[in-house]
Every structure is written in C-alpha cells, then in structure tokens.
C-alpha cells in the first residue's frame, strides 16, 4: 500500500521517522592499511577526459562543455559512435597491480536528455578479468560505482573504463570526476569514498588519497569516533563534498529514530524506537504582518544503555573503530561525540508514514527539515531542540570589511583581479556567480562616495592567493583606475543591471529579491519551491523589466544596501509591503503564498463537519483590532541609508490612501492608520513610475486590512495531514453562519499547523470580506459553469448582470465585472 492508501484507510499504524544527520569523517582511522597504495586515488587528470592520461577508443571528447557536479565548467562531452567505443585509464605504478586485490572505480556521468545506457568497467589492463555494470544515464548528474576482486592470475594494473557494449544505447554523454582506489582489506564490495580530484599528470605525483587520516594506531582500541570533536587529525578531517548525492559522501551520518509507542517500521535499516514525543511550536504565519514565525520543534527521546559499537559502517568496510567498551548511554555519548552542530549542513528530517508489510523509507512523507539548536538532558530524557531553516535568515547582509582592508596594489581599469589586505572578509560569491543569472551577487564598491567610485561584482575568491576575480564597472558605474590603499566596502544591490552595466540599474521583482537574500543567507537554490515562487510572482506581482531597453512595468523595487542588516528584517519589510507569506513546506522546501484569492485550477481541500473536523474542537476569534481605514506609505528616502528612515519626514514622497466611508460615523466611526516606511522604492528607478508602485502597494495593503480578521481553530484527523501551512482550504461548517443562518462555505488560508498524536490542530484565516473578490480570465479548456467542478465554480466564472452565475440549483453569486 502507498502512503495515501494507508492514510485514507480507516485503521492504520502511524509512525514517525526522525532522521538526524550529523557530520562524520569519511576517512578510515589510521594509516595501517595505506601500504600497497590502498588509500590512493589512482586516476590522473580525473576531471579532464580529453587529457592524454585517458585512452580514447573511437570516442570524441570536447572539453569543458557543461557545468560539473561541483559547479565548475569542467565537465567534458564524450561522443560514442559504435559498439566498443570507450575511454579508459590504467593506474600507473607498481602498487597499481590487481593481483588478488579488490578495486572500486567511479565516475560522474549524465546525458543531455532522456535515458541511455553505458557500461562502467573495472578491469585489469589486459582485460582478462572485469567487473561490468550497465548504468542508466539521465539528464542529471549521477556518480556510478563498480568494483572487482581480482584473482591471483592477472599481474597487470587496475583500469577504469567507460565503454559502449552491445546492448548499450549511449550516443553522447557528459563525464567528469573519475576515481579508482583499492578496497581496504581487499573486500569484495563497492567501497564508496567522497570524490577526490587529481588533476596532475605524473605518476610521481600520486599523492591524492581517498582516506587521508595520518594518525598512527596505538593498538589500544582508543580510536576516534569519526566525528570532529573526537578527531585526532583535524587537518585531514574528511567532510566529503556538499554536492554529492548521498549523505555519507557529503560527510553526513544519519541516525534514524521512530516513536516508541508504535510498531517499528521495518525498512531494512536500524531504526531506534527512542522517540517519545514531538512537542512543537507550530510554524505560524502572522496574518497581519505576513511574517512567518519559525517553527520550533523539540524531539524528545528516551535514552538507552549500552549503545554498542559506534561506527559499524567503518568496521564493515574494514576500517578501525573505537573498541573501548566503557559504560554510558546512547544520548550521553552521542552528545559528546557530535558536540556542536555544523549547521546548516547537519539536519533533522521529520517524516510521517505508516507501518505495513514492505514499507520503505521512501513511503514516508517528509514533514520538515530542521536545524539543530541544542540538546538538553532531563532525567533520562534527551531533548533535541530544533528550528526550521528560515532561521538562517538571521544572518546579516551584505557584511562589512575592516577599515584596514584596503587595496593592496593600484588597480588599472582593465584588471579583473582585486587584491585586498584580506580577501577572506569578502562574502562568499554564489557558486554560479560568473554565469548569467547567479543566485545572488556579491558587490564591492571601490572608493565609495567619491567621483572615482566604482562597483564591481565578485565571481570567485582565492583565499590562498588573497585575491578575488571581479567584473568591472557594474551597477551604473564605469571601470576606473584606483590608487593603492583605496577604500573598499561591501554593498548589496537589489535591482536589475542594464545590459550596458554602466547604465542606471532598473528595479527588480520583490519575490526575486526575497529569493536572492535568502540564498545569500545560506539557503541553497534547490531548497526553494521555485515553481510556486514563480507562479505567485507572475500572478500577483507581475513585473516586466527589460535590461536592454530600460523599460519596466509592474511594482518593482530597488535598493542599494550599504549597511549591514539582518536578512529576516529585510525580508519582513518586503513581505509587509506585498502581503507575501513565506514558510517551509512539509516537503522541506521554502515556499510562499500571496494572501490573495484562490487561482482557478488550484486544488483546494474541503473540510466539513462530517468528514474532517473533530468533535468539539472548533473555536473562532473575531479580531477587529487589526482593521485599518487608511494607509500611509513613505518612500524615496533620498540619500538611502544615510538617514535612519524611521520617520515619515525622512522620505521625499508620501502617499496616503483613505477609506473615508469606513471612518464615517455611519460605519466604524474612527480612523485607523497603518504606516509603511520603505526604503525599497528608490528614486534611482528613473525610467519607471515608482509612484505607481507605491500606489499598487498601498491599495493592496488597504484592501487586505479593510476588515478585521476572523480566525478559526480546529482539530482534524490524521488523514488530513497533507494540508500544509499556507494552503487554501474550503471550509463547510455550522460553527460559522451568515446572517440568514446558512452554514459557512468559504475559503480560508491555513496559517498554523501542529500535529499531536493522531490529531492535527490548524488555525485558518477567513478570506471572506478580507480579500477583494477577483475574477480571472478562464483557462482554455474550462467547461460551462454547469459542468464545472466546485473549485472552478468559485473562482473562474463571470457573473451575469444580476451578479449570478449558473442556472437552476447551480445558480450562485458570481464575479461581476464593473
């Protein structure tokens, strides 16, 4: 059964999996097995298939055609033409012989589109013994492994080959990063090591080790625990590569826990039934501010005596492990072995699923990824306190350089390297900083505030050489020469550079700015739900900005950040301006939702008294305090960050929108004002109407807060666990009624969710009377109203002159264009 069928079954056995990923060294302890070249990585020019170190058989290699798994433009294209076409490399040197030895070879490969097959082979040079595996290539990078334990007969050297055999379908593939190493203990199995580059060409330079721990084993069993706090050779600690696909190759060890009061899910892995509770502060969207309160979650575990062998993986792969028996409990030792958490690389994943025959971990649904904050002990319990990954936004940007960190040498206007006293103070550029649309841009301003000021974008930093590669004359400035000791500062530009980068920059979409600052804060590109960000942007905050012509349409923002500010504060300003809710989805993605009408085609869950809402759980709160009748926005701060911006007087322009009728004695009878002071509408957007943008934002804030808010709190059964924070839900309940006594049937947005036992507690804000009604041009393919489903009926049909849609029993209030 699948997750969905178990969830919908009347009875089921619910379980939770908590996967805790902590930093683990990927070396094997001590050098005792290094003899005979065990620990060497034998492939030379591992990232250059075009190099002569690789023997090509009828294949054509084009070097550096696409981005490699590590983000560099070093992956080669290899064209195969016929069966037995191949590229291959044989280990060079006396210790590379295969006789009675086991070897593991690996290489990263992908193809442009679709799926094709090719064979990865580990063989001796003479080809008399071989381990072959046919692998399926896709359009994503995968690292493929193969191993071979050779007999005592062959006496030549180990070889790694990629070959098109009969039955393989490959035509053109991309390849990068070949590795070949001898297995510890010559074990007859694949032994995976994090990829190690060797871009030299001489056998005498074979100094790249897959395992590089240099500690001598004292033979007393008191070895390290493969963690940083227990490491005895910190200089060679092996944290793997962040861009590899498997946790272990990223330097991560995962521990799996499940709830102690339910059957253990048998998934072929150790699962410790220590989890006794998950008291959590639910992730919550504050509707009046659209600010997401980070979920704080505490995993409560039982402790366990005699945790036993601590590093079974290393032992089963032939590595030496700590054999000191000692006493101690699981969590007491765990906390010492992994003291201090390496966030954001370390993580806690929470997954929910059901126990059934044949269940695998893939059948469990992710319900969040968290950062570890602290581990507390209380009696015999261990409590792991975590928070969601939006906490990373507590980081500040753009950062500062020391006042003494100035130009070390004079710079000419054509120079693309900058040398400061300490380039290590420059924020790390995005991995794709040199490409067309980088995740974010690190900008330096040289000689700021002078006529000779120049802004440059940093694409890479070489800490060892203390220099940074830069792009000159950016963000409306021109490349200029600068004298030695010139002042340099880090700034951040939210905006769009002109094609001619010396032109005045344009504004940028607010949602794109948000993503940029989050990525600057350390959230990876892949952690975003980009489809939703894009769709919310293009539906509700559409902008069209043309860097070549300079034309601009829509409510774009523009800001130059010269002082360091917390990313969360910056994001909060934008979210307040736009009404955007940002949150972490159950699928571990950072996502967003505009507080706006539901778009046609959106799947909306329906919650009813009969089928969903738990008896006696509904409560309502009508909050009039947040109602406003006028909005004041101050913008165009003039000299930007030189003034505080805390007072309306700091701004050159002010716009006020008033709902006069709401303030009359016939209605609410009092004015209530909301003030927005924003530095995001700068006058440098010379070619676009910032007044229009200000008008757009004020009118939307006005309409959103025109009425007080109504929040419903209710419990649901666990079968409704797919409902997420940020989701619109259609609620049908007798607990809310209209003036005629009809049951409520309307749309709410889920602003909070907490799972406890077999129940879910949600809070949802009612959109009725809060959102302006909107109508949409119906998508092609939508049927006539009478044939449409309920979801489409409430969103996609234009009313007649009576304000109604449909006929007969289907007739209801529709959307009238006036």
């Amino acid at each position: 059964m699948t997750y969905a069928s178990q969830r919908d079954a009347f009875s089921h056995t619910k379980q939770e999996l908590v996967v805790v990923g902590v930093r683990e060294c990927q070396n094997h302890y001590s050098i005792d097995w290094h003899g005979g070249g065990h620990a060497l990585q034998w492939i030379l020019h591992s990232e250059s298939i075009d190099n002569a170190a690789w023997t090509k058989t009828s294949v054509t290699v084009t070097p550096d055609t696409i981005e490699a798994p590590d983000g560099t433009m070093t992956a080669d294209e290899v064209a195969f033409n016929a069966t037995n076409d191949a590229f291959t490399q044989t280990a060079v040197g006396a210790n590379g012989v295969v006789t009675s030895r086991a070897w593991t070879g690996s290489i990263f490969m992908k193809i442009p589109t679709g799926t094709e097959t090719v064979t990865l082979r580990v063989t001796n040079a003479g080809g008399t013994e071989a381990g072959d595996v046919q692998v399926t290539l896709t359009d994503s990078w995968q690292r493929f492994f193969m191993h071979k334990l050779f007999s005592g007969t062959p006496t030549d050297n180990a070889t790694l080959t990629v070959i098109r055999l009969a039955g393989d379908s490959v035509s053109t593939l991309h390849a990068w990063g070949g590795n070949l190493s001898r297995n510890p203990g010559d074990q007859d199995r694949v032994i995976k090591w994090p990829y190690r580059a060797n871009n030299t060409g001489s056998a005498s330079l074979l100094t790249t080790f897959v395992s590089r721990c240099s500690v001598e084993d004292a033979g007393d069993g008191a070895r390290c625990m493969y963690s940083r706090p227990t490491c005895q050779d910190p200089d060679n600690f092996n944290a793997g590569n962040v861009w590899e696909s498997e946790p272990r190759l990223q330097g991560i060890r995962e521990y799996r826990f499940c709830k102690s009061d339910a059957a253990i899910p048998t998934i072929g892995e150790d699962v410790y039934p220590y989890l006794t509770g998950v008291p959590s502060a639910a992730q919550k969207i504050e509707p009046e501010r659209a600010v997401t309160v980070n979920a704080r979650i505490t995993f409560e575990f039982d402790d366990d005596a005699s945790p036993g062998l601590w590093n079974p993986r290393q032992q089963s792969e032939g590595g030496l492990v700590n054999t000191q028996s000692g006493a101690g409990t699981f969590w007491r030792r765990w906390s010492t072995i992994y003291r201090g958490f390496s966030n954001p690389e370390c993580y806690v994943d929470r997954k929910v699923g059901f126990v059934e025959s044949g269940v695998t971990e893939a059948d469990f649904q992710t319900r969040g990824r968290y950062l570890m904050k602290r581990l507390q002990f209380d009696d015999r319990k261990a409590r792991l306190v975590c928070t969601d990954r939006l906490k990373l936004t507590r980081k500040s940007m753009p950062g500062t350089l020391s006042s003494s960190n100035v130009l070390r040498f004079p710079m000419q206007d054509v120079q693309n390297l900058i040398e400061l006293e300490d380039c290590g103070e420059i924020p790390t550029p995005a991995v794709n900083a040199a490409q067309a649309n980088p995740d974010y841009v690190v900008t330096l301003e040289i000689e700021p505030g002078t006529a000779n000021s120049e802004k440059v974008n940093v694409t890479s930093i070489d800490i060892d050489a203390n220099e940074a590669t830069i792009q000159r004359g950016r963000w409306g400035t021109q490349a200029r020469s600068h004298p030695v000791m010139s002042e340099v500062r880090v700034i951040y530009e939210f905006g769009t550079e002109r094609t001619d980068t010396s032109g005045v920059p344009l504004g940028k979409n607010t949602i794109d700015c948000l993503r940029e600052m989050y990525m600057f804060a350390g959230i990876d590109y892949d952690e975003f739900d980009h489809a939703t960000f894009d769709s919310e942007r293009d539906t509700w905050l559409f902008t069209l900005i043309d860097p070549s012509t300079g034309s601009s349409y829509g409510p774009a923002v523009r800001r130059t950040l010269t002082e360091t500010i917390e990313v969360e504060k910056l994001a909060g300003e934008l979210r307040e301006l736009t009404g955007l809710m940002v949150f972490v989805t159950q699928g571990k993605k950072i996502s967003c939702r505009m507080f706006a009408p539901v778009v046609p085609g959106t799947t909306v869950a329906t919650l009813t008294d009969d089928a969903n809402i738990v008896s006696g759980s509904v409560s309502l709160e009508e909050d009039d305090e947040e109602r406003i009748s006028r909005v004041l926005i101050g913008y165009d701060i003039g000299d930007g960050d030189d003034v505080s911006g805390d007072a309306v007087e700091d701004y050159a322009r002010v716009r006020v929108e008033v709902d006069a009728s709401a303030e009359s004695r016939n209605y609410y009878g009092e004015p209530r004002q909301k003030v927005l002071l924003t530095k995001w509408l700068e006058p440098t957007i010379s070619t676009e109407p910032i007044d229009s943008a200000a008008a757009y934002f004020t009118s939307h804030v006005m309409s959103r807060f025109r009425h007080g808010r109504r929040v419903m709190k209710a419990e649901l059964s666990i079968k409704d666990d797919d409902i997420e924070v940020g989701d619109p839900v259609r609620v049908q309940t007798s607990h809310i009624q209209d003036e005629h006594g009809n049951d409520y049937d309307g749309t709410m947005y889920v602003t909070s969710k907490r799972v406890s036992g077999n129940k879910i507690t949600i809070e949802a804000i009612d959109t009725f009377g809060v959102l302006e009604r909107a109508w949409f041009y119906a998508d092609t393919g939508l049927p006539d109203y009478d044939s449409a489903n309920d979801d489409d009926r409430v969103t996609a049909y234009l009313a007649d002159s009576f304000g109604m849609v449909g006929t007969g029993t289907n007739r209801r209030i529709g959307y009238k264009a006036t």
Partner: protein
Amino acid sequence: MAFPIIGYRSMLGLSTTTITDPGTETGFSIASLHDMKSYTLWKSDQTASAVNIDIDAGAGGENADYIALVNHNLNTLGATVRVLADTVDPPLVEVLAAVTPDEDTVTYISFTAPGAKRYWRITINHAALPFSDKPNIGDCYMGMKTTMPEFLTSDFSPFFTAYEVAGARSEGGHALSATIRGQVHRATMEFGGPAGVARSFHDSDLTTFASTHAMRRHPFFFVLDADDATFDRAFFIKMTDTGDLMREAVGGGWSGRLTFTMPVEEAYMEPPE
C-alpha cells in the same frame, strides 16, 4: 496441550562465543544479532548465495534445542533457516532441517538438542537464489529452552494480544479513523496459580532465569502452547519496568513450592495483523 516455553538462553551472546558471517552489509554489525535490541539489525551483504552464520562456542561447547528470531525479513524473502552443529569446523550434522519462518515478526523453532557442540552454523538459504533482498535479523537466540512445569492460571488470556488504539470522532458524530499503535502483549503470568511451582524446578531453572534475565528486564521468547495451532505463536516479551517478580511461600512454607508470578509486556511491538 503443552506447557509454556520460555526461551531466554542463547549461545550467541556469550562472551566465550565467536560469531562470523560471510559479509555484513555496510553500516551494520554482526553484534546486532545478539544485542537483545530488536531494532538494531544484522544485515547480510549477500543476495547471490546462502548465508552461513558460524558460531564457535568455545572449547566447552554449547547445546541448543531452539532458535528464535525477531524483526527479520526471512518470511518475506521466502528464505529458509537450517541449523547444523558439530565438533568439527565447519559443522556437518543437521539438527534443524531447512524451514521457512511463518512471519517476519517473532519466530520460534524447536529441534532436538544434539548435546554440547563447539561449532554451530545457521544457514539462511533460498530454494531459488538469489534473495530478492539482503537478509536481516533484529535479534537471534539459540540455546536450551525452559519448559515450565505448570500451566498459567485461567485468568490469562491465551490470545495474550491487544491492539493499542487512538481514535477521533468528527463534529458530525462519525468515527473518523483508528490509529493502531501496534500489538501489545501485557499480562501478569502466574505459573501454577496459588500452588506455584516445585521448589526443585525453581532452584534448577527459574532462579537463573529470574536473576540473570527477567529481573534485568532482558527480553525473552515465550510460547504458550506449542501443541495448539492457535496458541503456538511466539512472543518477544520482557518483565515490565515497574512490576515485581513475585515468589512467595505456598501454604506458609517454601521448601516444597513457590509461587512464580511475573508481569510482562512486549519487548518488540508488532504491527497489527
């Protein structure tokens, strides 16, 4: 109707015993086979060939008349379990013919004790190799069983199973769902009722069980009635953490008989059937 059986002795966990397998899957340990923790798995790295778990019980040898497994995948794999014992290495004498466990949860299989032998082999095989997945076992006991000389009292439910459930009811009054946490096996076992068990049996068998196992809350296997097709299933249970093992004098004296009352609970929560 057979007397209840307790399986707590196991040669696998003895300090004098050495256990080897042809290959342990990366990340797993052979020691997990006998750590009394059903949730830490031993997992073989083999699928293509039979897996021999070899036990060297030391010079003195060990005897066994049962093998019991918990939290394994041998039923799903259609794998068989066979036991050999001998004075030579590898052992050649079959003491348990290949048999497929009836379930993946708790398995108890008895055989005729061959007498103390130094070398034992548990062979996991399949009629049509390879295995569809790598064999794994949470815990394995192999040793001499303890057959109780008395039956349990009549208030002991022979099904010895309940489902722990949490449910929810809707605003409209309907039962929304039932979340079954799993099978619980909780009862107070009173062997022989107020009349207890013979003092001689207590001294020869139960004292060791009580002091080295039950009161240390070590889990053990339990079979209520090996002769009954309904009640011959095995349980992996332990004494409750807070309960007391009651051994009281019978009729004012303790030379003839002692009561033996033990509150127990599941050590491994099985999913609902």
